[in-house]
Each structure stands twice: as C-alpha cells, then as structure tokens.
C-alpha cells in the first residue's frame, strides 16, 4: 500500500511548479538532446527511404561507366589524356556484344554560356547519343528533337532544359529560334519536360542537350582528345536481375578492348546505382554520427543537470521528506516521488525537444539536400529517450532521498 500513480504524478507536478524556472532551465540539455535525436533519426530514415526507392526503381537497371581514376605504372597519376579512355567504339561494342543490354549512350559534357537576344545564362551542356534521353528519363515537352542526320552530321541543333528555356524565352517555347552556345549558333529543336530538383538538390533542368558529334566539334574546343572519346557511357539492362552479370561482361569486354593484361588496373570504372548511393549514404552517416554525438552529449549533460538539481532538491526539502516519512510515507513512496519529478523534468524537456526537433528536421529538409522522413516512430523514440534520461539520472538522488533517516531529516 503506497501512493497511487496519479498521486505521485500530482505531487511531482506540484513540487516542480514551486520552482518552475529552475525546472525549465534544467530541462534545457534534454531539450537540445532530444531535438538532435529527432533530426538525426528523421534524416537517417529519409536516406533509407530514398535508397530503397532508388534501388527498387528504374535505377537498379542502370550502369554508369566512367574513365578510371587509375594510376599508371609506378603509382604516378596518369596524365590528362587518360581522362579520355572511353570511346564511342566502346559503347557500340557493348551494344553489339552483350544482348542483355537494352540502351547504351556515350556522352560528353561541359559548361557554356547560352545567349538569345539580350537574355543569357551560364548552363551546362550534354553531348549525347540517342539512347541518352530514355536512359535518363528525359522526355520532350515541345519540338521534334534530333533527327538521325543531326547525330551523324553534327547538326547545330539544341534541346533546351526548362530552366534555360524560361530564362531565354520566357513564355515562348523557342522552337525554331536560334540561340548561341558560346559563339556557335544553334537551332532549337525541342524542349525538355521539367524534372525539378534532383536528389542532390541541384536544378536538373538547368541544362542543354546537343548531339554527341556536334559537342565534340563545336563545344569541346581544341583539346587533345583521342578520336571518338566520350566522358561517360550509361546503359540499362532489360532485366534488373541481370545487372551484376552485365557489369561483369562490360568489365571484361572493356579490358579486352583496352588491352589491359591480367593483374593490371582498369582504366575505367563501372558503377551501379547502389554504389552511387553508397557514397551518398556515407555523407548522411557522417551527419547522423555527428548529430548522434551531439544528442548523446546533450542528453548526458542534461541528465547530469537533472541529477544535480534533484540532489539540491533533496537537500532543500529534507524537512519535507522527514515529515512525509513521519506521517506514513515509506522509503518506496519517497523514492518514487523524486524519481517522478526527475522523469517529469526530462519528459517536459523531451516534449519541447520533440517540437523543436520536428521544426528543425523540416528546416533541414528545406535548406539542405538531405532527405527527411518524420513519423510516429521518430517521435516515440525521442520520448522514450527523454524518459530514460530522467529515469537513469534521477535514480541516484531518489534513492538518496528514500534512504534518509526520518529522525535526522526532522531535526533539520
């Protein structure tokens, strides 16, 4: 027979109200700690969801081949010319010799100034082969796109991304108009349907497309490029289950074509989307660890603050404890009362921390390119953390209070 739960809670609230300013300041550490927990967990969950989406979606059918950042003999970094180890020939031979491959496209890329009348902007260009559009999920919003002759004959035609079109033409589609990329005039053959912000936060629509050969001749400038070089080859497979197999086939085909002997290092790199995601995850993991450290430190400091204030409270209220023991409170009652006060402080801190954390997580989602997922699990976890903090750090002062000798306590 000891105090009922509601009596314990009521008594704890009453005690905290007597010193509410002190209670509020004490819970500050928990507030920050729990807010950090919320942001950390929601970013972690958001990343996981994004990865799941990427891996389960079209992305899992795609491979990206880029020139290898390989090292030459003796470990020295190879000269700039080794940046162009991939060629159009590689792309064609992949298409011809690996039947599981659905689409292949080599591409070049660079930056330029796009000008129409008095409007201009700096943007990036992609020199592409025909499959590039379908591999990357681009569709035309307007215009007919490139003719086969444009690809073979290096036609001076361009397809504008939505951002570029809007900057140059405003409301107008711009089809058939002539824009300059650098000093070269191009005819607008189409516009791209907008994709919006990419997973990395960049504006995907700030781009223009030209045929690969056009890019090589008109936009690359006079650089020492090997004939037919491309900067990237992207491909998709017909069946996602074949991805690993095709990756192996591509690697051996390219090693053969590039005459790389057994034991020598590749001069190219084949990556599937999960490897790209892994880089991404590493960034998020770093941030999660950082926030986790902040959360841990804050909760420990907050907890020690609670312990400290509870010890002060026990000393201050030694007469009250003595009286309560005299009128029939058992050691268990006293321990529960002080434990309830400690848990209440940290729970209130937890609730405020959750509110701040939710706002913080939404802000992170807005300001940074980190994906954020908020749900009941995040909030529940944070609440559990705050209660656990109060329980852990409140136990020692509560035990100390319950072990007071009533005679000593009454004499104070």
């Amino acid at each position, binding site marked *: *027979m*000891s*105090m*009922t739960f509601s*009596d314990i809670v009521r*008594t704890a609230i*009453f005690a905290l109200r*007597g010193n509410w300013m002190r209670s509020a300041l004490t819970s500050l550490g928990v507030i920050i700690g729990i807010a950090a927990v919320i942001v950390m967990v929601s970013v972690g969950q958001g990343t996981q969801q994004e990865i799941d989406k990427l891996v389960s979606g079209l992305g899992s059918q795609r491979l990206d081949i880029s020139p290898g950042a390989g090292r030459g003999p003796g470990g020295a970094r190879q000269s700039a010319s080794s940046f162009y180890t991939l060629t159009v020939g590689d792309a064609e031979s992949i298409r011809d010799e690996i039947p599981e491959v659905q689409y292949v496209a080599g591409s070049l890329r660079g930056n330029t100034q796009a000008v129409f009348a008095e409007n201009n902007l700096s943007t990036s260009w992609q020199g592409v082969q025909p499959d590039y559009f379908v591999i990357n999920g681009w569709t035309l919003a307007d215009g007919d796109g490139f003719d086969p002759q444009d690809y073979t004959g290096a036609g001076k035609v361009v397809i504008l991304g939505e951002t570029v079109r809007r900057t140059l033409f405003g409301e107008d589609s711009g089809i058939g108009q002539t824009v300059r990329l650098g000093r070269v005039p191009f005819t607008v053959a189409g516009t791209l349907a907008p994709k919006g912000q990419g997973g990395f936060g960049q504006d995907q629509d700030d781009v223009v497309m030209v045929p690969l050969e056009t890019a090589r001749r008109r936009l690359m400038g006079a650089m020492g490029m090997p004939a037919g070089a491309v900067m990237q080859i992207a491909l998709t497979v017909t069946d996602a289950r074949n991805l690993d197999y095709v990756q192996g086939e591509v690697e051996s085909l390219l090693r053969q074509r590039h005459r790389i002997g057994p034991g020598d290092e590749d001069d190219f790199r084949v990556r599937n989307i999960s490897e790209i995601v892994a880089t991404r995850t590493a960034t998020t993991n770093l941030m999660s660890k950082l926030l986790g450290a902040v959360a841990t430190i804050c909760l420990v400091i907050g907890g020690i603050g609670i312990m400290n204030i509870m010890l002060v409270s026990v000393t201050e209220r030694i*007469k*009250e404890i*003595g*009286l*309560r*023991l*005299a*009128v*029939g*409170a*058992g*050691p*268990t*009652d006293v321990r529960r009362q002080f434990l309830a006060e400690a848990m209440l402080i940290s729970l209130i801190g937890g609730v405020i921390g959750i509110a701040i954390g939710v706002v913080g997580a939404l802000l992170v989602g807005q300001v940074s390119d980190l994906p954020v997922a908020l749900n009941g699990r995040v909030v529940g976890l944070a609440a559990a953390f705050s209660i656990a903090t109060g329980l852990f750090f409140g136990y020692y002062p509560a035990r100390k209070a319950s072990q007071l000798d*009533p*005679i000593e306590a*009454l004499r104070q």
Partner: protein
Amino acid sequence: MTALPSAAVPVPVIDIRGLRKVYAAGTQAEVIALDGVDLRVEAGEFLAIMGPSGSGKSTLMNLIGCLDTPTAGSYRCDGMDVALLDAEALARLRRDKIGFVFQGFHLLPRMSALENVAMPLGYARVPPAEREQRARQALASVGLADRGGHRPSELSGGQQQRVAIARALINAPPILLADEPTGALDSRTGEEILALFKRLREDGHTVILITHDAEVAAHADRIVVMRDGLLHEEGGP
C-alpha cells in the same frame, strides 16, 4: 476461542519492556541513551514524559513513534512488535498508529491548511473525494473550519499548531505523540493547545506529551521523568 483475552485484560497501547538504545556501541563514543526502560500506556491516557535535554527523552520519543528501532528490549505498539518490522512496515505502522505533533509544526508552506491536513491520506490510498471531506472534519474538530484555504504563513502560531494536530488526527491513530507542542508558542496560546489535547483525551485519544516544562507536564494525568537513560514514575495521580 470462547472469550477474547483482550476483553478481560485490555492490551496497552504502548507496552515497553527493558528497552535499551545504545549509540555507537563498542566504541569510545558509546552512548547509552536508554538503559532498560519499562513503560505501559493504556488507551485513553494522557501521559507526559519529562526530562532535561540529554536524558534520553528524545530517543524514547523516536522509539515510541516507530522512527527508530531499539538495541534491546521489546516494544509493542498497539499490540505490534516493532522489532520485527522493516523500514516499509515501520512507515505503515506510523501511518496507522501514530499521529505526530512537532514543536516547529512542520507544515508544508506551499500547501493550504486543508491540503496539509489531507496529505497523509495519500499514503493510505484514500480516494481524493473522501480526503477533502475527512480533512474538513479534522480541521473543524480543532476549531479551524473556516481556515482551510489559508496557507500556513497566513495563520498564527497557535492556528498552525492546530492544523498540525488536525493532520495528526486524520488517520484516526490510537496514539497522539506530541514533542514540545507548545515550545514555539506564547503561554496563552500554549494553554489553548493543551486544552485541546485534554479535550482529545476525553474523546478517547491516547496523548503522549514530551516536554521539559513541568507546568506543561502538569496538564497530563500521569507524568514520567527520564533521567540518565532510566524512567521514573512521578508522584502518581
């Protein structure tokens, strides 16, 4: 079980035999506070325990109040052998058997008189609605029916001690244990409090008064005196 023995021989509320309390036993600082005390108090008595400071008076009070356990000897509090109880059981015994009244009142400053009086009921799991009603009755019985909403700081010393007495009575304990209840009051107010104790005795309460003041002790039916750890009966009625 034809006849209960208690019907013929009433069990004393307090039955103390050969009680010893030794502090720091076996060391140089050893203090024999109680050196074999015998004391029987029947239900409805008004007893005063007198003695100078250092006589063992406070030790005896703590033992009677179940705040402490003896080194040797036995104490039956309303029939219950205290030696067998742990801290939790002692707390329950205090709650049910003892009503404390202190020299310094010991009211909780942030609570109203009514809340102070009702406070012990929480530990007895009395439902909240019943608590208030019982606290009002207890306050009325000490003549403070209209002061329930006042904080202790808004009451005079005598009124505060009445609130404390109402709190001591709230669980209807068989023993009312008052430690220098008039020590912090002027003599006129002290007389009022002592008159209240007498009235409570007449209502059937057992009152034990601990004091160093012979004038205060004179209000009791029976006086015992502690001297050097031993108890002496004084004069007789």
